[in-house]
């Protein structure tokens, strides 16, 4: 990201009075100035009026778990290294309304509150932090979905970067390629040297802002001094981190004993995630109370160190500190390149300083690298087509019909507003105002109505399954990948489903049932807890009667009147004919069931690329923003839920990922 230092970009000298004029000019242009301020013994990034608010004469001393401000003994304005706050709190505030619900008579309308704050000018953005902003841009603006409020703020933000001539003990931006010289993305960049500022312009907006300043072109000598200072800075980094191949190393060492060691020290407090300038995980909550009568939602910073972050229908899959620390480190340094084409770390050192027990990311990553026991190949980032609309805003839909499938499972027949195009395997987020929203796979379509088969296991699913025809709800979607119906044409297809896992497969089975020419032999193996828990019994019977389909059903617990198979699906998979290695397998059910099925298929010699699975996590946003549905380098909401097994096999086997 760093621009070549020998670039012959124009370099100007600006005296301090000129800097004051720059800030004044920005204010006059309507910008709200935000910059470093000394407060409560640290540097905070907050609203400033002018250069008099800047931390003149201060410098920080940082060590693992320790941060102190002291007098620098000089009059420099920008001697401080990154403090406890980062710019993300201004572009991606810790709390923010996501949607507001308006009721007009019988109809519902969700709206995204627009950003009304004035544009901001960030004064004194360090190179590592500029890189962090560019990394967050990829998360919020450069994926298939756009986070509209971030985009609105970001586009209007003017950035005055400051090159870093005095990196600290915890800094390793040189290793990360993010500093000490600012890379792309600034409007104006300053270097504070010898009592003056050397200024570069990075954009037309920056050009306009400096047009009337008393600038003088820097001399050759000054230019050389500056280059030399930056070179020296590069050599004075307190820490280093080798990132080459690190992702594959971290994911190749998921069960490395080092994770247990660091877990003994880790408090799982999550400070590292909240001081990190790139961490973006969030959660969404309903904010309405009885008193205000509203049914709005806000999102807030969440952390992979909170247990709640790994909640999935009433349980958690990341209980231990080991699993949580590992999630953070493997995501930051390992998964990020596959997700966003860049490491998630800028080398700012904040997580080392602000960890109350001083755990050092560079030390942990290096320890694993040095004693690595394996290496895996990480997937390349995939570009996905940009999707229109705001993924977080539900559109109203109406329940056309309700069907009780089993004692705890109901199918809602939902009529969306306007045309709705989906593919089997995809899911929707269904919203109940004031209660919340949940991911529900699409289990078919009848007429213009979309079918969702929902098992009542939590608050929102209970509310959904008690809706009556005519009720209004919100729908977001469709999200995610679909079953490879085209790719499996002409192949022998075995569908293995467990419990509610038949629902996301039903759409695909319906297509295969209707087109024997394309799908000459389809075998469905379906297991449920009891006979009463079998979904779609009539449809199973219809499929069973088709010449090109074979349907086998088994239950874990038989009732006296049950004359069919008792046992798990793997038993059916084995029974009778052998598992065919040349067949294609579509699998969906509880994760533990899928693991056993996969083992059965592996033992029978089925190549991983002939197997497709649908996974489940606690999707909260559907757009890859909230980070809650990650499985290794994948966001289940946009890279899944349907995966070809060979792509995810290296992470699927490990619990707690």
């Amino acid at each position, binding site marked *: 990201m760093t621009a070549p230092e020998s670039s012959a970009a124009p370099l100007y000298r600006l005296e301090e009075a000129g800097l004051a004029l720059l800030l004044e000019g920005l204010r006059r242009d309507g910008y709200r100035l935000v910059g470093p301020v000394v407060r409560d013994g640290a540097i905070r990034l907050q609203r400033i009026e002018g250069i008099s608010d800047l931390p003149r004469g201060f410098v920080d001393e940082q060590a693992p778990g320790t941060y102190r401000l002291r007098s620098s003994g000089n009059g420099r304005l920008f001697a401080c290294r990154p403090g406890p*706050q980062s710019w993300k709190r201004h572009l991606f505030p810790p709390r923010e309304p996501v949607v507001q619900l308006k009721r007009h008579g019988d109809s519902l309308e969700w709206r995204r509150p627009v950003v009304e704050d004035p544009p901001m000018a960030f004064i004194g953005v360090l190179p590592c932090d500029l890189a962090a902003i560019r990394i967050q841009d990829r998360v919020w603006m450069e994926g298939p979905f756009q986070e509209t409020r971030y985009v609105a703020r970001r586009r209007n933000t003017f950035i005055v970067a400051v090159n870093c001539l005095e990196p600290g003990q915890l800094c390793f931006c040189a290793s990360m390629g993010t500093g000490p010289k600012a890379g792309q993305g600034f409007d104006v960049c300053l270097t504070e040297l010898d009592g003056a500022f050397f200024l570069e312009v990075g954009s037309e907006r920056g050009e306009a802002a400096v047009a009337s300043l008393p600038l003088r072109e820097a001399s050759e000598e000054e230019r050389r001094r500056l280059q030399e200072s930056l070179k020296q800075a590069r050599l004075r980094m307190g820490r280093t981190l080798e990132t080459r191949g690190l992702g594959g190393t971290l994911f190749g060492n998921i069960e490395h004993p080092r994770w247990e060691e660091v877990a003994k020290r880790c*408090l799982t*407090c999550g400070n590292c995630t909240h001081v990190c300038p790139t961490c973006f995980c969030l959660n969404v*909550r309903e904010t309405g*109370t009885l008193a205000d009568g509203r049914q709005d939602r806000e999102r807030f910073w969440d952390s992979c160190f*909170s247990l709640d972050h790994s909640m999935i229908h009433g349980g958690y899959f990341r209980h231990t*500190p080991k699993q949580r620390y590992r999630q953070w480190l493997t995501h930051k340094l390992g998964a990020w390149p596959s997700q966003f084409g860049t490491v998630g770390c800028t080398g700012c050192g904040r997580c080392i300083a602000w960890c*109350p027990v001083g755990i050092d990311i560079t030390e942990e990553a290096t320890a694993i690298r040095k004693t690595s026991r394996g290496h895996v190949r990480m997937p390349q980032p995939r570009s996905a087509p940009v999707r229109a609309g705001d993924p977080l805003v539900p559109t109203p839909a109406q329940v056309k019909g309700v069907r009780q499938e089993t004692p705890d499972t109901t199918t809602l027949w939902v009529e969306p507003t306007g045309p709705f195009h989906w593919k089997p395997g995809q899911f929707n987020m269904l919203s109940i105002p004031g209660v919340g929203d949940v991911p529900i796979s699409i289990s078919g379509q009848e007429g213009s109505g979309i079918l969702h088969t929902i098992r009542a296991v939590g608050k929102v699913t*209970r509310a959904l399954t008690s809706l009556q025809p005519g009720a209004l709800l919100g729908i977001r979607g469709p999200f995610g990948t679909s079953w490879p119906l085209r790719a499996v044409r002409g192949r022998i297809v075995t569908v293995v489903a467990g419990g509610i896992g038949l629902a996301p497969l039903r759409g695909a089975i319906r297509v295969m049932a209707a087109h024997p020419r394309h799908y000459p032999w389809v075998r469905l193996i379906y297991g449920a807890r009891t006979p009463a828990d079998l979904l779609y019994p009539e449809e199973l019977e219809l499929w069973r009667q088709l010449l090109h389909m074979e349907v086998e059903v088994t239950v874990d617990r038989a009732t006296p009147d049950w004359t069919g198979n008792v046992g798990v699906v793997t038993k059916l998979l084995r029974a009778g004919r052998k598992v065919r290695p040349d067949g294609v397998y579509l699998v969906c059910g509880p994760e533990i069931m899928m693991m056993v099925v996969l083992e059965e298929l592996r033992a029978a010699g089925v190549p991983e690329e002939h197997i497709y699975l649908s996974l489940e996590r606690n999707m909260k946003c559907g757009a890859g923003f909230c980070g809650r549905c990650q499985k290794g380098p994948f966001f289940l909401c946009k890279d899944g839920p349907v995966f070809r097994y060979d792509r995810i096999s290296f992470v699927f086997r490990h619990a707690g990922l």
Partner: protein
Amino acid sequence: MTASPLYSGTQVSRVETPAAQGATELGVDPTEKDARGGRPRLGVFKFASCSGCQGVLLSCEDELLALADALEILYFPEASSHLQEEGPFDLALVEGSISAPEHLEQIQKIRARSKTLVTIGACATSGGIQALRNFGNLDDFVHRVYPRPEFIAALATSTAVAEHVKVDYELRGCPISKRQLLELITAILLGRRPEIRNESLCLGCKRYGYVCVTVAHGLPCLGPVTMNGCGALCPSVGRGCYGCFGPKEGANTEAMAQRMLQLGMSKDDVRNAFRFITGYAQAFREESARHE
């Protein structure tokens, strides 16, 4: 000790409310409700405590009116003299620890009469500050404090309600947080999952943008092992957290104690830091015992 629901890291309220769209039943069969023609019934009870948590309920001001509309208040001695202690209650808020012999029977009765029982505050959820006596000898304290000790009938220990009856939900804190109280009641009434997070205080502290007192000033702070909810009150004024919301799930108190020793605290100080307002909560109790 029976693990209380929050201590074991699960926050799932056991109120099974079939909430229709925006419905406001409180785990009550709609037909039952129609027959009674009433709103969900609230009871507020007190054991050994200072009443401060009930005070939070009373200080809800604007929201109190909405609550009074949504709920039928059957029993709330601090607020009303019309008392129907027989119930039955759809929601019982219980303040205070089980500290005196008569409490043992009373709490069983309340449990039997209540559909959903929520304990509120450090006393009810951990035994409270009065649970300090659990670490000593009751008789010694009684003889020192009271001129006529023979009049004092107290249990040897002050314990959390969850050690005696099944508790559906806990609100921590000394006192509880108004936001969490309103969220809990609203969530129960609307049939949604209460957004009361069992996460570290640090996450709240950082969201507010406060400067960490441990890292920037070397002050011991229990924030990393304490459940969030107070709005990081103490760190916001430059003090370390006292842990009054009790241990967060999976609190790594051992590593925390190591850090406190490193910061210059004596073993006694570390013990006393853990043995304070929620000192009898399991994780804190065990950690303090390591520094005897």
